[in-house]
């Protein structure tokens, strides 16, 4: 059992005597190294990633079959504003965005780090745990995409009749911007949730409860604009639509112009809010953590 240090003064003291390296350059190298190591580590799970991607197609195909049956029952009329092709595109795109942005096991690992006392070493090292985890998250997504890209592209090509392309390049560019923010929002939210490990023994239930809401309200199950309008409007007061639905609707051209600009700003604000919450939870948690160890 590792006992966390009573106070961190010695670490700070030692750093005074070290020749201070140029901070920005060094920081970049340090974190780039974390990403590299993260990719190496994640590559050992490539079989799992592949299995997850392939198994993930099965419910997706089933979902598309159900929608086809619905469109056939309606004799081809569109559902809300979606034609069948647009509906298929919606699900394919949400699968892609999910592959690019979903946290894999980051939240469990962070919670385990806290529970097992592994974070103590980060309190001693000149490395920030949040940026460190973000690097690992990025490397996880990069590796996942390396493995998942081939089956995903084959799958989309097989359904290319139903797959719409973005209206123009700027739309695609803004889609990518939104995807990056979605990834950050996902990560910071999960990080903040994992901080619960400072207070409770078992965080997985809390994570699953939040995930259930996210699953529905972020558009995993169905596009949000097939909901009755008041409910859809209400959901926009939560961060959930910005965790999946928003970037997909940018791609599909469902939001344009001023609406799009407003949406991106709100998304950025949610990212900042989640970041602030993550930092705040860490600071409160670490106080408690030190108290337990001391």
């Amino acid at each position: 059992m590792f006992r966390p240090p009573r106070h961190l003064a010695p670490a700070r003291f030692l750093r005074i005597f070290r020749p201070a390296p140029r901070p920005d350059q060094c920081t970049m190298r340090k974190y780039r190294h974390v990403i590299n190591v993260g990719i190496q580590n994640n590559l050992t799970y490539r079989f799992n990633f592949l299995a997850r991607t392939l198994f993930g197609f099965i419910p997706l195909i089933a979902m598309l079959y159900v929608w086809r049956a619905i469109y056939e029952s309606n004799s081809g009329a569109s559902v809300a504003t979606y034609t069948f092709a647009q509906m298929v595109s919606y699900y394919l795109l949400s699968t892609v965005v999910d592959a690019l942005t979903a946290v894999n096991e980051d939240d469990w690992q962070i919670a385990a780090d806290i529970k097992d006392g592994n974070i103590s070493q980060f309190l001693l090292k000149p490395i920030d745990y949040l940026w460190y985890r973000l690097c690992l998250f990025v490397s996880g997504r990069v590796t996942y995409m390396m493995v998942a890209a081939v089956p995903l592209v084959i799958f989309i090509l097989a359904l290319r009749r139903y797959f719409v392309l973005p209206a123009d390049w700027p739309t695609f560019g803004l889609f990518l911007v939104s995807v990056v923010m979605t990834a950050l929002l996902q990560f910071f939210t999960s990080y903040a949730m994992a901080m619960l490990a400072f207070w409770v023994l078992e965080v997985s239930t809390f994570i699953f409860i939040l995930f259930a809401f996210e699953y529905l309200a972020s558009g995993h199950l169905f596009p949000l604009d097939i909901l009755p309008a008041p409910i859809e409007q209400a959901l926009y007061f939560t961060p959930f639509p910005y965790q999946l639905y928003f970037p997909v609707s940018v791609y599909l051209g469902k939001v344009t112009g001023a609406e799009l600009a407003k949406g991106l700003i709100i998304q950025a604000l949610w990212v900042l809010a989640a970041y602030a919450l993550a930092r705040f939870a860490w600071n409160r948690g670490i106080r408690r953590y030190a108290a337990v160890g001391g």
Partner: protein
Amino acid sequence: MSALEPRTSASNPGPVDNAAAPARRSLRAVAARYLAIYIELWRNSLTREMMFKGNFLLWIVVEMLWFALQLVFINVLYLHTESIGTWTKWQVVLLIGASHFIQQTFQAFFLINCTNLSELVRTGKLDFLLLLPVNTRFVVSLRQIDLGAFVNAASAVAVMVYALHRLEFVPSLAQVAGFAGLCVAGILIHYSLMFLLATISFWTVRAQGIVWGYYNLFNIARMPDEAFRGLFKAVFTFAVPMLLVSNVPTRLLAKGFDSPWPIVLLLGMSAVCFALSELGWRASIRRYTSASS
């Protein structure tokens, strides 16, 4: 756990006693012994769950939420359509209830044990279970009971009763019994297939991922069978009979059959799956080399 101790009790004559007359009695004795062991396992699980009461309750909340999510999804779909194939809204709600009931009952008895098998193999803890004077598959499959899942299964029953009420259908006693029997066949399919996948852990350390991958397939079981066609339907009827597991019991209550074939198929597939899992288990356990010793 007195019931797990070697054969010393008077109630168990042991293998020496193989005279023709007491054969039936010894069969009953064996059944009694296994029942006693199983009761002991229940008591054990109950103690374990009650150690973390808050967590126990929270997991029930989690499952309820995900169940509610499925029902919300169906409600949203039926805002936009009258039917999926010939399935009406409340028939699909009944299907989702049945599927949840089957899944949760499976989870109550088997799920944790199936996912734990790879861990037992990896750490070599299977040694201890092999040494026990009971059937190893029995103790591996039924060691832990997930009591919260029974609560969730009850919530599924409540939803089914409500759906039947909305369908204005009162099933006869025979239909309820038939439904229960078909559910048992469905649970047996889930258990056999997942146990078979878990035995892959004797060959590779990556089995846990595969077992969780199978868990994905529960998503298919709650969808109306008429939506599917072609290869997809063939695979998930004859190779991995997900489309039979909850659709056939639900049809028995709500829709009826054109022919008795689906029922025969479900029962036949459950027997085949169970036989396959037993073969797979026997082939796999032979490879066990014990990691720790």
